[in-house]
């Protein structure tokens, strides 16, 4: 099963995205054999978490089994979260200008579902060190460190920081990531700690997927990164009503 941990729909203000659509995403997924992608709507990442989340759920309904929803939590808007029918929660401390370890994000951790967070080395909002702080406070919450810290000079440090925190994985999308770095990170902390994501439609799905497909990895490690690890992460948590996220996988 191939699962993409990091996807988006919709427009983003500072550059042109030629294809922002759910239909376009599914067409590309079909061509690549990607079973499902976790999405947050960029409107939700930006100024309207509730409406953006509604649009993400609507897209998931139109394409059953192809989109897992990362519902965005905005600590300023304090929007309601659900533990049903989602992969988990997406937070973007840099856009929200709220540190990942700020207590205003506590409702996210208290939900207990997997969390995908933007991670950016040396950012005052989302430096990988803050993931360690959160992981210590909430060792039962699966946490994906988005972009593995984003900047190549920080990849190895991010991997070292999460080594002793098994609930944290490195999610590897980003325009500065390389196939070589994916292999190096897998060698450093183990392929079972690396999770494929593409950042599509923000970035091109084919480039993110292809980076893993052609990275110098053996087949077993590649399979873990392309979906095995995320399937395990999504299966780790059990929502309050006993409905497992694993049951929501296609």
């Amino acid at each position: 099963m191939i699962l993409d941990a990091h996807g988006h729909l919709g427009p983003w203000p500072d550059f042109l995205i030629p294809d922002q659509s759910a239909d376009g995403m599914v067409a590309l997924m079909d061509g690549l054999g990607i079973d499902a992608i976790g999405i947050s709507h960029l409107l939700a990442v930006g100024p309207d978490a509730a409406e953006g989340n509604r649009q993400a759920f609507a897209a998931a309904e139109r394409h059953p089994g192809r989109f897992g929803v990362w519902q965005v939590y905005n600590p300023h808007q304090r929007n309601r979260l659900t533990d049903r029918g989602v992969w988990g929660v997406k937070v973007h401390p840099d856009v929200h200008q709220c540190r990942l370890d700020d207590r205003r994000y506590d409702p996210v951790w208290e939900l207990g579902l997997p969390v995908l967070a933007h991670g950016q080395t040396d950012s005052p909002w989302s430096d990988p060190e803050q993931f360690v702080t959160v992981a210590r406070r909430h060792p039962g919450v699966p946490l994906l460190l988005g972009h593995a810290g984003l900047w190549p000079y920080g990849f190895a440090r991010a991997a070292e920081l999460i080594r002793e925190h098994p609930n944290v994985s490195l999610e590897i999308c980003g325009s500065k990531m390389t196939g070589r770095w994916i292999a190096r990170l897998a060698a450093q902390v183990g392929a079972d700690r690396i999770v494929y994501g593409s950042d599509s439609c923000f970035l091109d799905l084919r480039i993110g997927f292809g980076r893993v497909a052609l990275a110098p990895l053996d087949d077993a490690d590649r399979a873990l990164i392309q979906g095995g690890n995320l399937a395990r992460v999504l299966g780790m948590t059990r929502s309050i009503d006993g409905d497992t996220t694993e049951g929501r996988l296609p």
Partner: protein
Amino acid sequence: MPEFVVDAHRLIGPVPFDDLPEDPRPEMDRLGVHQAYVTHTLALYSDVRAGNEALLHLGDPRLVPVPVLLPESFEPVPDWDVPMVRICPARHRFELTGPTALRWLAALGVTAAVDLDETSPGQLLALARELPEQRILLLNPGYRRLRAIGELMAAIPNLWLEIGTVNTQRGVEWLAGHYGAERLVFGTGAPVMDDCGPRFLLDHLDLPEADVALIASGGSLL
């Protein structure tokens, strides 16, 4: 899948900030890249002359030398027999449209490759006005400035675009639809930049096979 793949933007040699393969050929073999236009890292990160000398002694037909051109007002124009030179106006602190650069580029008459971060749309427009026959390969255009890139493609007929960093959803198809696949050139910037994703994209572009083959082999530029 394209039969002949040329990477128009590749480095050879060590870099000071990472542990990367110095020889591009093993990775080219692994990824199915048949030829690469290469610049020596010494010419970018140390001594331009030493880097260019090392490059011009490679003697491998798979590696097409792209020496770095550093215009010096009191030196003669190099007599290189190369199809392309690379210019780094920001790194080497010279004016892209200064009198020496213009004189050297006009005398050489070969394609000039320049990284978008080394220049600006305004400078490129000025260069095209001063030397309308000058062929320009814009490296690392990225994905956040497609609107500005589009303007440049429309305004400068002799501008080609390296696609390795055109990384937003269907960005390459968008460019091909508006400006023609012949204006697009496969390149990666490896090993500093990624070659796996762009190489994979080449095999999965939603374009006619002939257009993909054209992009893979250097558009109408190489």
